[in-house]
């Protein structure tokens, strides 16, 4: 029990919160066919963080987040520029921008030798979920002990704040979001400010991606922006239920993925004491859920096929 509290409680909670947060936003990205933007933003966090490290020489969270935020902004501007000047589709522009910026980040990282200070490509991809150890979490009593609680890894608090921010945004702007996703022209005509809400959504995606990046790496973020929401869309034709399904899928992915990563391969007969990256396993489970939904989801047929004139 105390092992679980010390080594697993915080990583598991952080993984669950971040998965749920990203999946919430993912619902609207999927409906707007903008899933790639989450992918793009979580990739470009890397060059931002490297540049901020090169400039400041520290890995302090604020500097890192600022760097990631600036690079997210640069990305959005670059995507828009390439789309307009090159007259290509938004997804093509995104693809070009985030792969090149991510590559630039990798190069910068190797070149500057920053890899010595626990900032390496692996870290960027998988995060360091397993390192979120709660040293004072020695037993159930620690949950009500203010001293022990103060020792909780700061990533937990950050994830929780970002989660609350996203929930608040979705509650307040739920009608704007639905209207802007379904019919932006009508939304503009009733002054629902679809362009502004769009910008807010992308900003929150960036905030969630950056907060998640530090704790869990970009793999989880990318998987969670897309997989639970896409799988949920195949389960139902009602938006509210879709969101509920996406939350369930996110929790199942995080919990099952975390447990499988720690112990599961042993259970599955790969021999004991084999553990793999929790982030990688969580993303894999999310992908498998999506696969299952594609194969067996009740709404996998496009209802629009029946549309005639």
């Amino acid at each position: 029990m105390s092992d679980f509290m010390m080594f697993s409680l915080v990583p598991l909670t952080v993984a669950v919160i971040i998965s749920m947060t990203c999946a919430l936003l993912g619902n609207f990205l999927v409906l707007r066919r903008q899933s790639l933007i989450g992918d793009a933003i979580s990739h470009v966090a890397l060059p931002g963080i490297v540049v901020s490290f090169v400039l400041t020489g520290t890995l302090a969270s604020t500097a890192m987040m600022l760097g990631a935020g600036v690079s997210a902004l640069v990305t959005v501007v670059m995507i828009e520029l390439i789309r307009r000047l090159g007259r290509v589709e938004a997804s093509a522009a995104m693809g070009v921008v985030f792969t090149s910026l991510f590559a630039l980040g990798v190069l910068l990282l190797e070149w500057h030798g920053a890899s010595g200070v626990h900032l390496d490509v692996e870290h960027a991809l998988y995060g360091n979920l397993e390192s979120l150890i709660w040293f004072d979490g020695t037993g159930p009593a620690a949950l009500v002990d203010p001293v022990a609680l103060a020792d909780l890894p700061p990533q937990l608090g950050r994830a929780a704040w970002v989660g609350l921010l996203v929930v608040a945004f979705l509650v307040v702007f739920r009608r704007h979001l639905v209207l802007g996703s379904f019919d932006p022209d009508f939304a503009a005509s009733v002054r629902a400010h679809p362009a502004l809400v769009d910008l807010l959504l992308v900003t929150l995606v960036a905030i969630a991606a950056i907060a998640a990046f530090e704790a869990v790496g970009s793999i989880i973020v990318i998987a969670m922006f897309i997989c639970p929401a896409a799988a949920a869309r195949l389960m139902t034709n009602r938006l509210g239920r879709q969101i509920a399904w996406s939350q369930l899928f996110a929790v199942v992915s995080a919990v099952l993925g975390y447990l499988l990563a720690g112990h599961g391969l042993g259970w599955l007969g790969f021999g004991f004491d084999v553990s793999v990256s929790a982030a990688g396993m969580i993303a894999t489970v999310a992908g498998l859920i999506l696969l299952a939904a594609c194969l067996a989801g009740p709404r996998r047929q496009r209802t629009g096929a029946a549309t005639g004139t």
Partner: protein
Amino acid sequence: MPDPRLAREVIASPFAIQGLTVSYDHRPVVHSVDFVVPPGSMTAIVGPNGAGKSSLLKAALGITRRLTGEVRVFGRPIEQMSRHVAFVPQRNSVDWDFPARVIDVVAMGLFRDLRWWQFSGRDHRRRAMESLGRVGMEAFADRQIGQLSGGQQQRVFLARALVQEADLTILDEPFAGVDAATETAIVEVLKSLRDEGRTLLCVHHDLSTVRDYFDHVLLLNVRRIAAGPVAEVFVERHLQATYGGRLSPVQLARLVGSAAEVGGR
């Protein structure tokens, strides 16, 4: 109070456009258009493909940016008066696979009546159902929108506008790709709105029905060619100017009929 220097017809009009120019990539798609929609009229905007009909509407409604121009609703800038205007976009401009039911789409017309902490109540549902009833779609309220035919989709869009109870309803190609029965049904609803004293403005493609459906018309081809009552304006000279002389004499004879050319601008 509206600006007292405005012309009386502008103050009376639910939609008065002045000097509207829209451009994409430095190319004007709508050039310096003035147009006053008479109150209580059923007005068509007619012109060839690429004449800027939709661009004019979208820019006037503030959906896209306008380069120059003013739009007034009862003499006041449309930005303050958008509550009085309902807009029905082209049916094909949205994704009908969106996870929503018919009643959800109609309830979108209640957007301005609900603050973020409010849930839509029984009264809102009643209003949405009434609008659906007016377009003959109440039996479809709980149907998935992806299951609708094109004509049914158009009726749902019209019901969403009805729920807004606006003085002016603007429709972009409401008859595009709908069956004849739906077209008749929509025309009946639009005429009943006009009989209540409301104003309707439609982008319209089918020249052969302009005389049957509308009382006023704006002929547009980037610039304003002519505007006024259908009987005066919908004549050979203006139609040829609008369509660049591409209408055949047979077509024209059928469209204009025996109506004498009075001319009028």
